[in-house]
């Protein structure tokens, strides 16, 4: 089989895997949240509500697709795709187990960070193209937030890079053989904590969901979207959440490393990603949203200097011990 065809098939499988994962991650979140809120959660569609995501997807597909009369049609219609594309693309670089992944690039982490921050283009297109004041305000907030939070996110993601001496995601995992970076004295714990915070901000989830802000901006940039376009936006958002959860598990929790035979690797990795996801979900459903100026304050006055110091400290430690891990 020609390598191009093989890659195409692999990409097709991965894409559908992402979509399937997203539908069931929504169910996981709903069930988990329901327990937090002393409810049962989806229960009627299928046993224990297992078919609920399918029903939701079907409902969204059958909904009328409304385009506001005053919308900038091109921008409005393209925005969900522009938002979805980077969110799915980043999966291409994640190795789920040794050799199991589309492309374990030698600049994997850089690719991940660069592409995932492109989602702002889609967000802004949606906010601008809707020609709605709520959406416009939300788009402006989105730009503010992404600019403020991508820097600390990148700095904290660089901590494992400095420790392992490679940008290749597979290499970072291999360097954690023996000691997961979350267990690295002080640096690891602080790094993981900072990663969780910046990850929530990068995903635009409560308490940093000022761009959705349904109680003030109704639903922000997606207020005018309905039907499948809305579904695409949701899909992109959850895909991003899943990807960053995997990245967190990879950078700090040792990726596929775990007891048992090698083929269990992908399962270990997924379990760790689920743990990261549930941690973030727990935060999401226990905090109130903070204000736009407070978000910027936290980012520039606290997180940015803190992550920068953390990165510098990591560099000093590595230099002291004489060179990074595998290099």
């Amino acid at each position, binding site marked *: 089989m020609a390598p191009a065809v093989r890659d195409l098939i692999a990409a097709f499988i991965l894409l559908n895997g992402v979509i399937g994962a997203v539908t069931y991650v929504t169910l996981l979140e709903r069930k988990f*949240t329901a327990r*937090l*809120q*002393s*409810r049962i959660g989806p229960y009627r569609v299928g046993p224990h509500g297992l078919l609920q995501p399918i029903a939701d997807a079907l409902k969204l597909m059958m909904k009328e697709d409304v385009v506001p009369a005053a919308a900038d049609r091109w921008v409005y219609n393209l925005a969900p795709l522009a938002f979805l594309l980077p969110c799915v693309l980043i999966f291409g670089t994640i190795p789920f187990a040794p050799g199991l992944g589309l492309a374990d690039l030698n600049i994997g982490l850089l690719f991940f960070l660069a592409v995932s921050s492109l989602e702002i283009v889609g967000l802004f297109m949606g906010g601008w193209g809707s020609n709605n*004041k*709520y959406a416009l*305000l939300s788009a*402006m*907030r989105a730009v503010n937030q992404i600019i403020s939070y991508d820097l600390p996110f990148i700095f904290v993601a660089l901590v494992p890079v400095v420790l392992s001496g490679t940008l290749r995601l597979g290499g970072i995992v291999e360097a954690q053989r023996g000691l997961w970076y979350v267990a690295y004295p002080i640096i690891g714990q602080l790094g993981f904590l900072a990663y969780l915070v910046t990850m929530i901000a990068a995903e635009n*989830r*409560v*308490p940093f*969901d*000022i761009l*959705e*802000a*349904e*109680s*003030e*901006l*109704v639903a922000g940039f997606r207020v005018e979207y309905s039907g499948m376009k809305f579904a695409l936006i949701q899909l992109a958002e959850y895909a991003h959440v899943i990807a960053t959860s995997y990245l967190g598990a990879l950078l700090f929790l040792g990726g596929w490393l775990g007891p048992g035979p090698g083929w269990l690797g992908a399962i270990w990795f997924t379990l760790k990603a689920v743990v990261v996801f549930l941690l973030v979900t727990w935060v*999401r*459903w*226990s*905090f*109130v*949203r*903070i*204000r*736009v*100026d*407070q978000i910027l304050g936290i980012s520039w006055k606290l997180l940015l200097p803190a992550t920068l110091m953390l990165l510098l400290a990591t560099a000093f430690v590595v230099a002291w011990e004489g060179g990074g891990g595998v290099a």
Partner: protein
Amino acid sequence: MDPEARKVIELGYAGNERLVMNMGPQHPSAHGVFRAILTLEGESIVAVDAVIGYLHRCHEKLGETLTYVQYPSIASKTDYVAAMTSELAYVLAAETIGKIEVPRRAQYLRVIAAELQRIASHCLWLGTWCMDMGGALGGGATVFLYCFRERELLLDLFEALTGARLLYGFHQVGGTRYDAPAGWVERCRSTVDLVETRIDEYEAMLEDNAFFLARTQGVGVISRELAQEIGVSGPLIRGSGIAYDVRRVEPYSGYGDFDFKVPVETAGDCWARYRVRMVEFRESIKIVRQALESLPAGPISSRPGVKSVGQVRIGKGEAYARVEGPRGEVGCYLVADGSAKPYRMKWRGASFSNLAVLPHIVPGHKVADMVAIMGSVDPVFGEVDR
């Protein structure tokens, strides 16, 4: 708002580009149907034009066309979140004009109903307020569901007492319409015990939460002077440092018999109003316990049961009765002409007077604070528009 008034409220305007944004009448945090026309400079609000009237149902005119027997159950529909309160204000006014005695058992039952209603209403306030700040897809929804869990228990009590869960028709001129059924007192006692432990849980969840503090402290400050000038009442005025509570200032329905505190905070911000209401939860529970403990035996009404709606007639006269509702002072002004219907009636809605403070405290804040302030004022639009 006329241009002259707007000039006073607008803050130092730097001449930047402005955006006029409608919030409501259909809006997730409009608390009903409230329309705020916000003038924004970026994210900051420079002026707010509050538009009310979307829920006007001619309540005061309706009061003239319905008899003293009929109206109490309609009075429920002014403030539908605290239906017991407005019913009580109406029958108190009618009883003052007719110089009708109310048996002590009925008075105590009224107090119990009013205080349970306050707890239920504050549960709804806390839940919706947190939802305003935390969103329906965040921590706010969690608090909301917790609060509703407790509110359900209280509504179950009302259901056992009156057969209704939202709009009761519990009060009637001369007493109450229903007596507490068998076992209700014990059930009520165990429910308030449970609710009290849950209030500790809310406090633990919210007060150690840095984000909650950041959203409430120093936001929407009502100064003592402003509070007096506008005439706000209830938790708003107590949050601004004035110990004004109708239950204490002018005790009615036997409130003088009970031992309770009137919580006062001096900061005047959302946090102060939150603290006042959290203490009120506990004080209400205290009052309910005392009233259950000393609930006298005897009749529940000084008047015989009515066979037709026109049977209750009170003499000529006029009276203003006021009660302390969960949202503040609820007043009912009644003019009677000797027939079975009042000649004229007028409501003083606590939400209406409290809402008037909004254009004075919102400018200068961010859009997100608008909903936090709005929630801390806790208006019910049935009562604002009537």
